[in-house]
C-alpha cells in the first residue's frame, strides 16, 4: 500500500510539474518556429533559387569567369544550407531530403560513383535534367557532386555544366519543398508544432513538441562534435585527417562549423533560455551553458578561414579539441536542465540503441 501511494505521489507530482510548464513552452515553441525555423528555411529557399539562376547564367560563360561565378554561388548557397542543416527533423528527415542535399560523410565514395554514372549516361547519349537527377542516386543530387565538379582541375565542360544545371535545379526544388513543408497552413510541420492545424498528426501536447525540439538541438550538437570535429581530428595529431572534413574541396569546412555553432546557440537562446532563467539557480545554469556555447562559437569564428590541412598543426588541432569539449559540456548541461524543466526527454529516449 505504501509503495502504491509512493507511486501515485510520483505520478501526480510529475503531472503537476508538467502541466505548470506546458503553457510557457507553447509560447517558446511558437517563437522558435516563427523566429528561428521559418526565416532560415525561407532564406535557404531564396538562396537556392539564386544559386540555380546563377548556375544557368554561368554555364553560358567559360574559363575562369565561369568557375569564379559558380564557386561564389556555391558558397552563398552552402552558407544558407548550413544555416538549416541543424534542423535534422521534420521536412529534412522526410524522403531523404537531408541526404539528397548533402550526402556526407561519404565513406563509400558514393558521390564519385554517382558522378561517374551520370557521365556514362551522357556518353550513351542521355540528356541529364533535373528529373533524371531527382530519380538517380541520393548521393548524386546535392551540394557534394556540384562541389566535385566546380573544384576540379581544369575547365568545366559543357556536359558537366549540364549536370550542374540539373543539380542546382534539384537543390532549389528540395529547398522550396522543405520550406513549404514547414510553413504550409494546412499540413506544415510548423503548424503541427504550434497546434494551429485542424488536426495534429504528430503531437499530443506542447511538451512533446519541446521534447522534440530539444532532442533535435541535443543531437545536432552531438552531430557537429562527432562528425565535423572529432572524426577528422582523430585521437592524436599524427593521425589527423583533413579530408574527413565536410567540404575540404572548397575549403569551407571550418566555416560550416562556425555557422552550425551559431545556429545551435541561437536555438538554445530562442527555445530554452527563458525557461532556464526561471529555475531557482537559473542565472548560474544559463551562464554555464552560454559560456560553453560562446567559447565554441569564438573558436569556430577564429578558425573560419583556416584551410583543412591546418588540423595537422598543433595549435589548430588543440583549438578544435577545445571546441569539441565545450560542445560536449553544453550538451551535458542541457540534459540536466531538461530534467529540471520536466521536458520529457530521458536517458533512453534521447540516446537509446
Amino acid at each position, binding site marked *: 500500500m505504501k509503495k502504491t501511494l509512493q507511486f501515485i505521489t510520483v505520478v501526480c507530482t510529475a503531472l503537476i510539474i508538467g502541466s505548470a510548464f506546458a503553457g510557457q513552452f507553447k509560447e517558446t515553441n511558437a517563437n522558435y518556429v516563427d523566429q528561428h525555423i521559418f526565416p532560415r528555411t525561407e532564406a535557404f529557399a531564396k538562396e537556392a533559387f539564386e544559386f540555380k539562376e546563377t548556375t544557368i547564367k554561368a554555364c553560358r560563360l567559360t574559363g575562369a569567369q565561369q568557375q569564379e561565378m559558380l564557386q561564389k554561388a556555391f558558397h552563398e548557397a552552402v552558407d544558407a544550407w548550413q544555416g538549416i542543416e541543424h534542423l535534422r527533423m521534420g521536412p529534412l*528527415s522526410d524522403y*531523404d531530403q537531408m541526404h539528397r542535399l548533402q550526402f556526407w560523410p561519404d*565513406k563509400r565514395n558514393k558521390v564519385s560513383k554517382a558522378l561517374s554514372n551520370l557521365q556514362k549516361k551522357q556518353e550513351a547519349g542521355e540528356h541529364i535534367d533535373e528529373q533524371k537527377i531527382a530519380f538517380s542516386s541520393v548521393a548524386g543530387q546535392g551540394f557534394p557532386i556540384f562541389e566535385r565538379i566546380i573544384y576540379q582541375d581544369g575547365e568545366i565542360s559543357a556536359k558537366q555544366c549540364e549536370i550542374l544545371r540539373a543539380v542546382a535545379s534539384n537543390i532549389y526544388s528540395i529547398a522550396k519543398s522543405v520550406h513549404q513543408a514547414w510553413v504550409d497552413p494546412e499540413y506544415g510541420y510548423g503548424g503541427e508544432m504550434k497546434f494551429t492545424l485542424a488536426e495534429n*498528426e504528430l503531437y499530443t501536447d506542447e511538451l512533446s513538441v519541446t521534447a522534440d525540439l530539444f532532442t533535435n538541438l541535443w543531437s545536432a550538437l552531438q552531430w557537429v562534435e*562527432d562528425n565535423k570535429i572529432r572524426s577528422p581530428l582523430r585521437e592524436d595529431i599524427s593521425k589527423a585527417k583533413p579530408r574527413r572534413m565536410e567540404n575540404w574541396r572548397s575549403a569551407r569546412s571550418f566555416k560550416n562549423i562556425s555557422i552550425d555553432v551559431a545556429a545551435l546557440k541561437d536555438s538554445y537562446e530562442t527555445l530554452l533560455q527563458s525557461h532556464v532563467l526561471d529555475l531557482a539557480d537559473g542565472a548560474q545554469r544559463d551562464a554555464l551553458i552560454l559560456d560553453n556555447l560562446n567559447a565554441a562559437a569564438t573558436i569556430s569564428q577564429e578558425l573560419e578561414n583556416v584551410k583543412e590541412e591546418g588540423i595537422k598543426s598543433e595549435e589548430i588541432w588543440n583549438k578544435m579539441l577545445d571546441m569539441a569539449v565545450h560542445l560536449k559540456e553544453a550538451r551535458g548541461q542541457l540534459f540536466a536542465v531538461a530534467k529540471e524543466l520536466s521536458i520529457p526527454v530521458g*536517458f533512453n529516449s534521447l540516446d537509446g540503441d
Partner: protein
Amino acid sequence: MFSDYTRRDLLRSGLAAGIVTLAWPKILQAKNGSGGLYWSAFANADNSYGMAVFDLQGDFIFEKTLPDRGHGAAISNIYGHLAITERRPGWFGQIWDISADRLIAELKLPKGRHFYGHASYLGNRLFTTENSYDEERGVIGVWDASNGYKRIAEFDAGGIGPHEMRILENGREMVIASGGILTHPADGRSKLNIPDMTPKLAWLDCKSGKVLREWAPETKWHKASIRHLTVNAQGDVFFGMQYQGSRRERAPLVGIARREGDAMISELPIDVHKSTQNYCGSVELDSSATIMAASTPRGNKVIFFDARDSSYLDHVDITDACGVIAAMNRPEQFLISSGNGGLYLHNVHHRETVLITQTNKRWDNHMMYIG
C-alpha cells in the same frame, strides 16, 4: 571445431526446459525468493556507469562500476557467469562471477571489431554481436567459456548492424536482429547509410554459422531498423523496430515471425502509435509467453500485445521507460525500468503499476532475468 552441444548442455544452460539454475550460486539462490533476480546496466548522474542485480522488492544484491556505458548482457547457468559488452561502439567485454563478486575475464576483441552490446550463451560458448567496421559487415564473435573466454571463431551475422540475438530452444539455431545501419567508430554513433539501409532477421546455425533463413520488412519499410527481439519455446521471434524515415508515417513498430509461416506486424491505435515516434526500445514476453511487451521510451510508454495473434491489448505511461522483462513466475506481470531511475512492477490484467523503488540511477535500455 565445436564439440557437439549435448542434451545435458542445453538443460544446464536453461534452454531445453525453461529457466533452470542447476549451477547457480547458492548465495544468489538464497536471496532469490519467489520473484527472482534481475540485472540492468545504468548511468549515474555524474555520467559514470555501472550495472546492478536486484530483486522485486527493490533490494540490490550486486552492484559494480563499469568502464563505460553497458547495454545488454547474457547469463550462463552452467558457469554462473554474467557477460556484459559495451554498447555501440563498444570496446569492453567483461565476464563477472557474481557470487564470487569478481571480474574473471575480459573479452579481447580482434582488430577492427567493436561490440554492439548484446550477447548469448549456449553451453560453453558465448556469442557476441559485433561490427567489422572497416569491412562494413556484421559478425558474431564466438568465445570459449571453458577456456578463459578465448575467441575461437567468428560468423558472418548475415546483415549490417547485428544488435540483439537469442538462441532458440532447439539449441541449434540463433536468431539475430540486424538493424541494417552502417556505422563506423571514427564517426561516433552517426548513421551512414540511411537511404539504402536493409534491416533483417537472420537465423544462423549455431555450429557452422550458416545462414538458414532470413526475413526483411517489405521494401517500403526498408528503414524499419530491427533491433530487439525475444523468442518463445516454439521458436517464434518477437521483434521491435526503430524507423529511420518520416515521423509522419505510421511505420511498423513490432512484429512476430512465426517459426512456420511469414511475419506479421502489429497494429496500434493511432494515438498510441503517434506517440511512439516509431521507436521501440525493448521487446519481451511475460512468464506465460502469452503477452508481448514493447517499450517505447520516446512515447514514454510500454505497450502490450497478445503474443498469440499480435493484437494490441493495452499500454502503461511511464516516462523514459525502456527496460522491460517478465516478472518470473508471475504471468501477465512485467518489471519495467526508466531512465529517470524508477523500477516498476506492472500487472497487465489488473492495469496496476507499483513503483518498487525510485533510485538516482538512469536505467539503461535492457533488463535481464538472472535466476
